[in-house]
């Protein structure tokens, strides 16, 4: 009788002891659906399924990045087993600032060493590790691609988010690339949706190309940007494949499906008992170049054969 009671209690305890993941996200579930799917896929590969052997507690900032520290503090207060900080450096930094003891797995496009999130790639140190998608590193590449599409343009515009922790380093690299390419660089700032339209209308008048820096805020508003680009007939390039898929011209950046999936796998490994400090930061190997031929036609532009042959995906 006593044994049966103990058994029931331990079973109950086991159920209570189901690990909890705290998912900190800067955006809304709708915008993040495809990333979340990749994350669940990675988690599943590590043997965890939400609701079955792991619980996930979500915190959505709905695009208000300023709310991230408070949301991160919520998760820490709930004493979750792992904090997942996907979708960019601000999230990772907010999580790192809030969590003293919780394990953190980030997913970002920037260089986590340069941002001070980790000590080094092979030895992240502390209680944090994650995946970087290289999107930030390839900002100059976007400028190069835009230059190739508009070889005669003497001036190209770059859109940066001044609130992004990676903005300065990206702009520095872009300026140096512009020098190499021999183009003049016009830097425009946008940190809110309302600032998008004025940018497109300005560039439309100057008949130039628009290069977006790597920034989650831009990436998650690809549909909006694509609509504006087509409305003002401005050739533009962003980091996310969502942009050409939604009707934009082209994108160049790390494969987010891969990075979110790997983050999910890392979370699984940590839940199984590995220490974040023993898991090196992974760089996503795949950088994808997507072009939309239909958008090019609407804009009256043509991709060179080398651009087409170099594209990982061509939307006809």
């Amino acid at each position, binding site marked *: 009788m006593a044994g049966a009671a103990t058994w029931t209690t331990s079973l109950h305890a086991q159920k209570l002891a189901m690990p909890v993941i705290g998912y900190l996200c800067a955006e809304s579930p709708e915008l993040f659906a495809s990333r979340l799917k990749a994350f669940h896929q990675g988690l599943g590969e590590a043997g965890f399924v939400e609701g079955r052997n792991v619980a996930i507690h979500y915190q959505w900032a709905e695009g208000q990045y300023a709310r991230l520290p408070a949301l991160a503090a919520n998760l820490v207060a709930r004493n979750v087993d792992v904090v997942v900080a996907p979708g960019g450096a601000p999230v990772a930094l907010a999580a790192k600032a809030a969590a003293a003891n919780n394990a953190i797995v980030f997913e970002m496009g920037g260089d986590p*060493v340069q941002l001070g999130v980790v000590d*080094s*790639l*092979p*030895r992240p140190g502390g209680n944090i590790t994650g995946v970087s998608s*290289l999107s930030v*590193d*390839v900002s*100059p*590449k976007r400028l*190069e691609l835009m230059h190739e599409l508009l070889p005669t343009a003497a001036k190209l515009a770059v859109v940066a988010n001044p609130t992004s922790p990676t903005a300065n380093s990206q702009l520095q690299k872009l300026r140096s*690339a512009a020098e*190499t*390419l021999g183009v003049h660089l016009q830097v425009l700032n946008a940190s809110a949706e309302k600032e998008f339209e004025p940018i497109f209308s300005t560039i439309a008048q100057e008949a130039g190309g628009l290069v977006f820096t790597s920034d989650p805020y831009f990436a998650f508003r690809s549909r909006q940007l694509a609509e504006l680009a087509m409305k003002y007939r401005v050739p533009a390039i962003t980091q996310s494949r969502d942009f050409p898929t939604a009707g934009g011209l082209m994108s160049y950046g790390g494969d987010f499906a891969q990075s979110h999936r790997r983050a999910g796998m890392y979370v699984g*490994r940590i839940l199984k008992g590995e220490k974040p400090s*023993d*898991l*090196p*930061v*992974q*760089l996503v*190997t*795949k*950088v994808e170049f997507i072009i939309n031929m239909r958008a090019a036609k609407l804009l009256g532009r043509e991709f060179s*054969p*080398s*651009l087409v*042959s*170099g*594209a*990982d995906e061509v939307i006809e």
Partner: protein
Amino acid sequence: MIVRERFRGLFQKYLLVLFMAVAIPLAINGIVEAWFGYRDQRARLDQLLGVQAASAAAEIHDFIYGITNQLGWLVQVPWSDEPDERRRTEALRLFRQAPAIVSLALLDNRGLERLYVSRIGLNRIESRTDRSADPAVIGARSAQVWFSDVSYHRGSEPHLTVAVVGNRPSVGVVIAEVNLKLIWDVISAIKVGKTGFAFVLDRPGRLIAHPDISLVLRGAEEATSKPFRTIRDAIGPAGAGFATSRDVHGHEVAAVAAPVAGPDWTVVVEQPLAEAYAPIYAVLWRTVALLAAGTMFAALLAYALAHRMTEPIRVLEEGTERIGAGSFDHRISIETGDEFQRLANSFNNMAAELALAQEHQERIAKLKRFLAPQVADLVDRAGDDSVLDGRHAEVVVIFCDLRGFTAFSAALAPEEVMSVLSEYYEVLGRAITQFAATLISFSGDGLMVLVNAPVPVEEPALRAVDLAVEMQKSVQGLIAGWRSRGYQVGFGIGLASGAATVGRIGYADRFDYTAIGNVVNLAARLCASAADREILIDAEVAECVRGKRSLVELGDRQIKGFDEAIPVFGISFDTP
């Protein structure tokens, strides 16, 4: 008690011998089988891991040479001095096909960089930088395909530089940087057994491919690569068979290495020893189980056989002990159908004969009390004592007693009386035995003897007379001695012949042989009337011995109990 005895002696010996006879060949067979099984399994494991290693090495080789083959397509056409847009298209197409290539540099025949494309950095077209002194260029020019040492990008991702030259100098050189992290797709697909896997080390022994990507990303660290290098070093030169070593977690593993030519790497496949040896353990366990079962069977068999062999002996032993102790009716029961049964039957027969013999002896002992030993033997030889049954017979009855013995005994001490009687019966007994007469009874100093019954003899009267003479002579010898000591005693004998009823009388174990009839009374009366030194016989006896022995006619005498006086005769004899 019986159990303790059983585990001594023969049972123990038989048990041991029989057990050994079965268990030793069984054990030898088991050990031999296990040894060969072990060797076969080891050889199979050797072969299996060897094949796995070779196949893994081939896959890694394919990965690398797949890339160099594709690079080879970029060095097919001679360079002109004009920029070549077509080559850029081809290079970008190659990016798509070979995701592991991070960057490509195309050099012309003078070693000038004509095109550089990168996934991350900016492309360079016609930079015309002189790279002819680049080790990649020099290496590729001498060996067609050149591989650099592995470098770890930002201390984490392993990269390899590959340079390929075309089949003529004018086509130039292509130099590609390859991210080796992508070997993961290949290496993680290689499964060795259930949990075994493969990993790749470069020439200095740094980890460049492993199913756990997090280890590869730290491959540049000594602490990460050392355990893997230890395994590689334990294997030694390829082809030496599998080696056992310990993995990162200290578990024992079986590992085989195979080289990857070109970049000079080593592919090692490892399998946990417990898993690799599982079939060997299975064989060993099977053997142990069979041995245990066989030994148990041998023990049971030996016990049963030893029991079967010693049990008859025990029964024999017990039986003979009981027979020896006198239980002649005991029979040893052994139904083994072999020598033991025959032996038991012999014992049983012996016991039966012993019982018979004892019965004879008892009977003879009984008979000897009242029969002459010769007669007793005769009865015994006859096999039955029907001769003692009651019947009518012509017998001669002899009575004798001492004269004046009652007065004599009253005056003496009992010891002396008994001593005198002993001497007296000693001599009488000897005479009775000598003449094969039958002692019927004695009381005090008187004695009754029968002749011609129960066993008939020839001339009974004559024999009886001779016996009487002998008795007189012997006793008179004694009397002479007694008289010299002052005792006044005499000895008289009476004989009569006639029909009497003879037979056995008595009850239970107490039997006597006796005669009943007038002749007995007559003999007793004659004895009573006989004086010392006298032997009185009746007419019938006298008639029989007349002419043969010297008779003295004593005339008719009035005998008590007889109405008329009857003729009485005496036998004269010489006094010694």
